[in-house]
């Protein structure tokens, strides 16, 4: 069928049916509202009240004050920031590189490769964390064993018990577990790029690198933003990785806000957990703000 451009007719269709959007959007949004608004309100108000034992009165910002009196709160916040940045960037880079590598013409067995590379994401976090803990163990670990046999290091490194190395080492686990998702998303995005655009670029003699940077990446912009968003969400939610590897140690080197909240909750220190949760929510809002600014700049 000839692709006419019946703009007038369609403009009539697209516009007001003013309410045409509702049956699509409202059900999902309503459920989302129910699930998020009340709990969020609840946690914010809980952070403003005191411990049940002390009489449940309104204590205003006392809980937050107490939070910052915690000797290490700045460290926790800083660690959280580092954690988010390192893990998101690492996963993004690895995932994009992997996706591009898979699309290169000469590569065979794409399906198999993809399925194998996806495994880290599929494997249950608890088990993966345990295995990485073994890897990193300075006594039993494969990593030290392999590195020493190759001759890269002489003495075993304390990946998890050295405050300097611990955060990075733990971040590697998170990157390992999240890069396949990035790869998948970018792959799907690459495949939905109109082939004709790519062909045109190749005919023009553009090298693969400039092709990648100038044509493909911009076309993937949407997908990339989503991916970064999700990576940040995952980073802010990731608990198991750190908890199993180091329990937040050594000496607080890998303690992030989620870890703090989880320990407070386990100790049933609900006021501290609530206050810290609000703080974490505020941090997420900062990331949300950045994202929104980026996106609206596009529009």
């Amino acid at each position, binding site marked *: *069928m000839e*692709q006419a451009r*019946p703009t007038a*007719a369609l403009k009539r*269709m697209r516009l007001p049916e003013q309410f*045409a*959007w509702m049956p*699509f*959007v409202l*059900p*999902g*949004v309503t*459920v*989302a509202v129910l*699930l*998020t608004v009340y*709990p969020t309100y*609840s*946690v914010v108000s*809980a952070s403003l009240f005191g411990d049940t034992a002390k009489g449940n009165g309104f204590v205003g910002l006392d809980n937050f004050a107490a939070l910052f009196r915690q000797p290490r709160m700045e460290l926790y916040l800083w660690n959280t920031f580092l954690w988010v940045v390192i893990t998101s960037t690492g996963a993004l880079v*690895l995932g994009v*590189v*992997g996706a591009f*590598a*898979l699309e290169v*013409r*000469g590569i065979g067995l794409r*399906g198999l*490769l993809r*399925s*194998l*590379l996806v*495994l*880290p994401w*599929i*494997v*249950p976090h*608890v*088990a993966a964390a*345990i295995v990485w803990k073994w*890897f990193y163990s300075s006594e039993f670990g*494969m990593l030290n*064993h392999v590195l020493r046999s190759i001759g890269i290091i002489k003495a075993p490194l304390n990946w998890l018990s050295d405050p300097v190395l611990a955060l990075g080492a733990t971040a590697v686990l998170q990157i390992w577990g999240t890069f396949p998702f990035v790869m998948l998303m970018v792959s799907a995005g690459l*495949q*939905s790029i*109109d*082939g004709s655009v790519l062909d045109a670029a190749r005919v023009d003699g553009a090298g693969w690198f400039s092709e990648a940077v100038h044509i493909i990446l911009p076309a993937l912009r*949407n997908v990339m*933003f*989503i991916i970064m968003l999700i990576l*940040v969400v995952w980073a*802010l939610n990731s*608990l198991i990785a750190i908890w199993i590897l180091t329990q937040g140690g050594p000496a607080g080197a890998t303690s992030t806000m989620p870890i703090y*909240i*989880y320990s407070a909750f386990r100790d049933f220190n609900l006021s501290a*957990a609530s206050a810290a949760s609000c703080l974490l929510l505020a941090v*997420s*809002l900062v*990331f*949300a703000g950045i994202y929104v600014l980026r996106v609206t700049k596009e529009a």
Partner: protein
Amino acid sequence: MARKSNARTLTTIIAYVILIGLLFFALAPVALMIGTAFKPNVEIFQVPPRWLPRAPTLSNFHTVMFNSGIPRYALNSVIIATLMTFTALVLGTMAGYGFSRFKFRGHRALSLFMLLGQLIPLIALIVPFFQIFDAVGLLDTKIGIALAHLTTALPLVTWMSASYFSTIPVELDEAAIIDGCTRMQALRKVVLPVALPGIISIALFAFLMSWNEFVLASVLTNTDNSKTLPIGLSEFATMFTVDWGSTMAAAFLMTVPVVAVFLLFQKQFVSGLSAGAVKG
């Protein structure tokens, strides 16, 4: 011409190197996991460490399948994850479609709201979820866990769907509508099939999120009624001993079905989109 094919070969080689490197990175821990699943407990902490068992055994699998709560937890996990994914897909893709195709008052506000919804770290919500579920009687129920997981999944699915839909030209919908479809039919018959690879990865994403989720599940469950697989994994650790072999065997069993599903849908992925639909 020669230069071009040299460049191409170089590119291919580089790509292979990268992929092999990534494969090692990705698979080394998995290999250790599988190796451990087949090791008898004595071998697990040997120094120097070994990848493969000297005396492979199926005893860990036996423990997992007949001497643990894993089978029951597997059932729970399947029900919860499927229920949650299905709901998120239905509600989320519809909403995503709505956001991507329509302009309406409140579009900006609502989509911002969905954005914020995803960014709420679930950790921050364990306290209220716990208290609310307790009050409403949703503690220790499968529906409760599914709802809790839906909290992050739904906004995410909505955003991701909206994003995918926006890469699909509106002309597709318009063509369908001209042919006599309603909006809903246009979505179902025309847009969704084209967006299928994206939708599938979104579905897999949501399913996995629920399948592997540990923290909320551990807080909101108590008994076999609702305990999920990740909790089952952690139960091989008692106060004094950890049955590592069984933990890994259970992890192996947890991973295999998901990999199978993924392999099944590989074809959808690889075959690409019917991008030709618009070109007519």
